[in-house]
């Protein structure tokens, strides 16, 4: 499919504009409020995606299967690559590392842009949380960028 790669860029454009929209329409809101709004947008999408996506697939047996599904199938579908590294403490914390996170490929890796990256992570975090909730795993998702374009997502299972 020749149209699939450019469509990726269309999604990136839409995502950037969505972040800009929330920032410009909530000029006096706290960082948390901005984050929450974008996260909620992602959450809804993640839920629907996971539902469509697992409908015809085999049942995911346990928590680890679900997490692997997110790292592999879900990530490939959304970001065209797998998670590069998955770690767990075996007590409900999973750390997913993406060494070339898609939404950052257009952004310079200098320090000054790191702060700007925070709102860009809200939607992806919501996406993951929505997908997981739909697969019966409730958790708290946070993301961190120590050096562009490496991004780590931390999942803390709450159920």
């Amino acid at each position, binding site marked *: *499919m020749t*149209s*699939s790669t*450019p*469509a*990726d*860029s*269309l*999604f990136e*454009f*839409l*995502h*950037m*504009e*969505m972040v*800009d*929209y929330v920032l410009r*329409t909530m000029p006096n809101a706290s960082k948390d409020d901005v984050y929450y*709004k974008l996260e909620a*947008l*992602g959450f*809804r*999408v993640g839920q*629907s*995606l996971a539902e*469509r*996506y697992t409908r*015809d*697939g*085999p049942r995911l047996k346990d928590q680890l299967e679900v997490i*692997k599904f997110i*790292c*592999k*199938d879900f990530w*490939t*579908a*959304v970001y065209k690559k*797998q998670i590069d590294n*998955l770690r767990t403490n075996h007590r409900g914390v999973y750390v997913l590392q993406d060494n070339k996170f898609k939404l950052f490929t257009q952004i310079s890796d200098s320090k000054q842009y790191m702060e700007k990256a925070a709102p860009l992570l809200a939607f992806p975090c919501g996406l993951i949380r929505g997908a997981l909730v739909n697969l019966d795993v409730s958790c708290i998702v946070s993301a961190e960028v120590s050096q562009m374009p490496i991004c780590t997502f931390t999942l803390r299972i709450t159920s």
Partner: protein
Amino acid sequence: MSRQAPAVRAAEVKKINVELFTLTYGSLVAQLVKDYEETNEINNQLEKMGYNIGIRLVEDFLARSGSAKCQDMKDTADVISKVGFKMFLGITPTISNWSADGNEFSLILDENPLTDFVELPPEHQGLSFSNILCGVLRGALEMVQLKVEARFVKDALKGDDTTELRIKLIQKLQDEVPPGED
């Protein structure tokens, strides 16, 4: 993570990118419906967002398509439909309803990936759900020196038989040549 994904999933992967896009757009419109009471204001916001996307997207479009400068509006319409829409949305709208002076035409969208799984909320029957496309076209064309007006005149979501996007050339902007260059 060594288990092979079943074939069903592999096929789904290709499709999901469109779904991700469609669902994200739907989620965004739902947010706008929450943020604004006035249907018109939602339409305006969508157009504005599209415009912002259009002015960024045109660079990507030119780089990927290697498209040459269009000679006239007929040419432009062809490129919009067969290259632009095809490239970004995977559809090729039909070009029709040219005005006599050749400055105005319609794009007929037989399918519209933005409106999959969509029903208009009863209190916003005037919502131009895909209005973002009007903005994208306005923004992108402005970057290639064409000032246009774009609007939906028919929308299958509102019960019309087709979805028709009307584009009207308002003005050709002057090429700005940087000083010191021919």
